């Protein structure tokens, strides 16, 4: 037997192809998949969210309550709590009591969590000057709860997290990641959802004070905050805020909502009605 040591001319084990082209192709495919899943989830969650029972929502709320953002918030003064309850019973059909918490945070912000917890920052409480503004903010957040907007946002995040942990073998358990849903619930809502929540805020003002003055003042605080930050100022140069104010003005005209005097918020909100 003759031994003829030879090397092959080409290495068949190295596939030809451009790594950059591969990368671009994969990025395009991955983006298409993510967008596809997100859009599909959006439709699915929008259909499912309204059917989630209030008991389930309360259970989710109880679970989310363990998140540091909610855990470190302190209970709101009795008067704010009473104002929220008044709005809930008079202008929404939310069947469970809401809890208002205050979070030490200079940002002008407020958000609601499924299960009826609303968090106000000290920043927003410092900024507002009237009980009417407070009522509008509470009404707006109650509107999000009543319309199940947070469940929709959470549902998408939850399914995405589940998918990613299934595929990527994420070290975090799904349960652990669930806590971060609170942060996800702070994500922006669609323009339509915001408009409906604004209308709920206007209804809240009507139900408590019998007029709708106070809503526009709330928007002015957000505009003030934007002056300090180029990026948010840029974002706000968009006519969004103006169109929201205009929508409320138009609605007030159509519904015949009157204007009225502001009720001062000093030193603590006093329930006027």
């Amino acid at each position, binding site marked *: *037997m*003759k*031994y*003829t*040591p*030879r090397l*092959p*001319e*080409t290495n*068949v*084990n190295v596939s030809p192809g451009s790594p950059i082209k591969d990368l671009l192709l994969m990025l395009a495919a991955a983006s298409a*998949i993510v967008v596809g899943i997100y859009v599909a989830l959006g439709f699915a969650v929008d259909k499912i969210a309204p059917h989630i029972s209030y008991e389930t929502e309360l259970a989710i709320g109880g679970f989310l309550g363990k998140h540091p953002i909610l855990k470190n918030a302190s209970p709101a003064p009795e008067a704010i709590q009473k104002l929220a309850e008044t709005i809930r019973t008079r202008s929404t059909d939310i069947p469970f009591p809401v809890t208002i918490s205050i979070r030490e945070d200079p940002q002008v912000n407020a958000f609601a969590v499924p299960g009826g917890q609303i968090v106000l920052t000290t920043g927003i409480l410092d900024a507002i000057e009237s009980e009417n503004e407070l009522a509008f903010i509470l009404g707006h957040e109650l509107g999000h709860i009543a319309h199940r907007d947070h469940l929709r946002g959470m549902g998408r995040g939850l399914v995405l997290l589940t*998918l990613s942990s*299934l*595929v990527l*073998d994420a070290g975090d358990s799904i349960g652990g990641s669930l806590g971060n849903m609170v942060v996800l619930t702070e994500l922006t809502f669609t323009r339509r959802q915001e408009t409906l929540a604004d209308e709920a805020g206007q209804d809240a003002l009507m139900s408590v004070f019998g007029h709708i003055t106070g809503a526009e003042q709330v928007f002015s605080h957000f505009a003030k905050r934007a002056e300090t930050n180029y990026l948010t100022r840029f974002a706000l140069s968009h006519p969004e805020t103006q169109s929201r104010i205009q929508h409320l003005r138009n609605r007030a005209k159509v519904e015949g909502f009157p204007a009225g005097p502001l009720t001062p918020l000093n030193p603590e909100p006093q329930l006027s009605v």
Partner: protein
Amino acid sequence: MILTNIETVPGKTIVEHFGLVSGNTIRARHLGVDILAKLKNLIGGELRGYTKLLQDSRKEATERMTAQAEQLGANAIVNIRFATSSIAGGAAELYAYGTAVRVE
């Protein structure tokens, strides 16, 4: 090309040998198969998607090994072996190797 995993080709004589030839490939299936496989873990059973993955890999590795042998002027590969290893989650390496020979 004669492929065999014994050291000879029965009925033929090896007249020349060219040394080791090998073919390898590392493959993954797509996202859908990976998700189904994870779900299958819950109930058990054959992970058909991964069975196909390894089948395709073996075929590709064998073809590459054969291509190498052809380049050397061989008409048979004897003593073929397969090896596999896990490279990343959901991906497998298939390595096929053998001795390229010419038989008469």
